[in-house]
């Protein structure tokens, strides 16, 4: 079970979080059908770092992007997203 450092709450157990999707599978609502379907169905699966969207669902409910290693499960970085994280 991962330990994820929530940008708002600090290190917490994975059971408090839910996984949403990888960043490359985010579908831009304005995208054409081909681009959208590519994001949904034909994604890369690299053995290395990967950006993923997670949510601290059973904590502060905030959204964040994890940079996670798909093989070692090491989490290299976490950054908050959402309206409050906008510059």
């Amino acid at each position, binding site marked *: 079970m*991962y330990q994820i450092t929530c940008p708002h709450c600090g290190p917490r*157990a994975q059971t408090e979080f839910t996984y949403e999707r990888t960043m490359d599978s985010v579908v831009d609502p304005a995208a054409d059908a081909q681009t959208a*379907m590519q994001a949904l169905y034909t994604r890369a699966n690299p053995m290395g770092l990967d950006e993923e969207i997670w949510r601290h669902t059973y904590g502060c409910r905030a959204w964040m992007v994890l940079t996670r290693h798909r093989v070692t499960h090491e989490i290299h970085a976490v950054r908050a997203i959402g309206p409050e994280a906008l510059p």
Partner: protein
Amino acid sequence: MSGPMRPATGEETISFTFDGTTYQARPGDTLAAALLANGIGLVGRSFKYHRPRGIMTAGIEEPNALVTVGTGGRAEPNTRATDVFVYPGMVATSQNRWPSLSLDVASIFGLAAPALGAGFYYKTFFGPAKHWLRYEGFIRRAAGLGNAPTEADPDNFSQTAGFCDVLVVGSGPAGLKAALEAAEAGSSVMLVEQDAAPGGSLLRDPDPAMDPAVMIAQIKALGGKVLLRTTASGYWDHNFLTLTQRLAEPGAVPTHGFAQRLWHVRAGRVILATGLIERPVPFANNDHPGVMLSQAVRSYVRRWRVLPGKRVVIATNNDDAYLTAEALVEAGAEVVALLDARASGPAAPAGVTVHHDARPASVTGRKHGLRKVTAVIGGSEQSFDADLIAVSGGFVPVSHLHMQAGGKLTWNEEAQAFIPGETPQACETVGSALNPPPAPAVAPAGKAKKSFVDFQNDVSLADIDLAWQEGYRSVEHLKRYTTLGMATDQGKTSNMVALSRLAEKQRVTVPEAGLTTFRPPFTPVTMGLLAGAGARNAGAHVRRIPLHGLHEKHDPIWQPLGYWFRPRAYPVNGESLAEASMREARTVRTVAGLSDVSTLGKFEVSGPDAAALLELVCATTVGKLAIGRGRYTFMCREDGIVFDDGTVWRLAENRYLMTSSTGGADRMAGHLSYVRNSLRPDLKCSVVNVQEHYAGIALAGPRARAILASLIGSEPPRHMGYAPATLAGVPVHVLAASYSGERAFEIHVEASHAAAVWQAIDAATRAEGGAPYGLEAMELLRIEKGHVVVGGEVDGRSTPHDLGLGGMLNKAGGFIGAAGLTRPALSAPGRNNLVGLVSLDGPIPEGGMLIQRAGQSPQGHVTAAARRILEGGAIALALLEDGHKRHGEELIVSSPTRGEKARVRVTSPHFYDPAGERYRD
């Protein structure tokens, strides 16, 4: 097997029973030690061939001596006799034997062993089915170990979290030293030991320089936590470990309320001092009672003062077994011969004859021990009269946790063992697991057929050879074909022996042959422990809707819906569910009814960009809604498939209320949050989940408008209109939405004031001759009206067009799923479309398949079946291939599983008031 050397200290003060006979034991005895002290060698029967089995080890790796401990719901089958400490009144029972342990009828299977060899099940499955049918019954009766108890476990299990800088697994010399050093350096330390006593190998080979009791006291004095009878059973990501702690022995009544505790520990650093497991030696009948691992023999002699045999042969390929010879001689046993497979070895104790280049070939036995050991010495055979053989085939480092942590193994040729190597986690292995004693490879000398490798699953060297011969080259295939290493001991004593054989067959080195992966748990874990407090219905909490108590007074039939219970029907005068729901539905059609719809998903979206967010989520237009108006809407996934539906209302200039299905409410909450935070953080709006903030009451029927008008003192909004109002002195939202097909309203009220509002509406409705209605009546009403339901017609495969909702799509696009919907396949012919079915004869079986004639592949299925409410006659909703174009066609609904059939005509799904005249005024 006999010969207590027990005296010295201690007394036999504990009584326990084994197979109904009462025996005495000392405090601190494992069941295995106590049985051996009482001269009992035969403890169980093997899984497949029912061969007599005894005690082979003195630890958790025991493959043979499995017993059931305890009775009733507390019985624990397949408990290792070496891993349970005797307590007063303990009831132990042997397994897999009939009628008794010593006289077991099924042991004749041993004679059939050639037919039951590796791959027997697979071969039988591939053969004609009738063969399997012939074998199945008898295999199911004969094969197996202990029986799972049929009663519920009366015990409680606890779960708790732990944190430490350093977690040390194992309290042998290395573990004690590591834990003490860490504690002295100021770290918070947890030391876990699966045994009831600390010390590990020190219990067998005492070291005057190390007293476990003293060191444990020092660790504790420095603030360290020491958990005995606790197994580190799983090593997960980010240095997270699960520990299983026994607070009561298997089958015992817990004294402190809990039988076991599951620890979730996040450790800064983990030190694995897990030691070694001794390898058995393959030779003919090496599974017989009286064949024991060398270190185990030493443990019984030194730790428990029990002599497992009087005339002992020792067989080894390493120096460690010489210590066993010493211990046996000290204890007064006769070491008949020490067979050393090597050409030379250390000095043996006085009086012990050492034979070099000597390997055991076979043994013969009696009930509780051996009769004779035959060895190959040099090139010739020699036999010895002996009741016990102590064997050592080398040592296997316990690297399970290291591998679970993602660690690599390196091969040590001298010790013929895999040693823990690099690991990606903050974890290191210390002690003997890193330095197993040298032990060269030795070719087995006995007949392969009776030379057992995996004792628990009855896998012999011959089975491995057979798997090889039949083309199974990979160790993973070998494992699955022979079932090697797949028993409850997970191959702790067998994996390396088997791997050596496979490597020998392949003519490669052992590391080239590969190794199977170790996975948690290290030793078996009780299911109740994983459930913890979640057992006995505490796992799924029942949420109560605000009006639960009010409904309860009418004693309704309840139905679970989402997290809640909602009344399914309110039967009166002994009505059945069908009678009550039909009466309620008829009341709605003719007068008025009220129903609790509190569980609907409800979201308030506000802010200048609220409409923009809703236009993204909803597939229908939202932005053009006038203040005080609402509309039906539905939501698509990114691939264009409908996943939920509801209504959206404009309460004020920048304030909207969106409703969605009960079952999908959590998913919708997550979806809205994802869209808002990930896709459009730039929007100026807020989304608040008000599902449980508001209770909802539906009021429907031709009299609904008049009833509501009298209650709120003004004209209610027209269909799909919204108005705030005051009802029973409580502020409410009135939404004029109709699910039933009648003039209807949803009245949403702040949950804590819901009772007063319900009671007022209920009284006014009953005064008009109306009544409350439940989910079943609602289902009858919506089917007749042709409204879809999420989880029914909205089945994760239907597009808006399939459901007849295509005309409502936002023509401007821009909603989630708009791009996905343009995929050609979603508008190609052959898709299942929503249709209505009218029966031409009897009732329509729900879930039935739609066919044109018998024997045809189904062209669709019935999603919901009902009866017409006022006219009578069976109707249904269905998804039918190209259904939109097939109205008027006659088909057959067939449910082969229920043996039901009906002839139907395909129609529009709107059976009732298709023009919607009943709710417009």
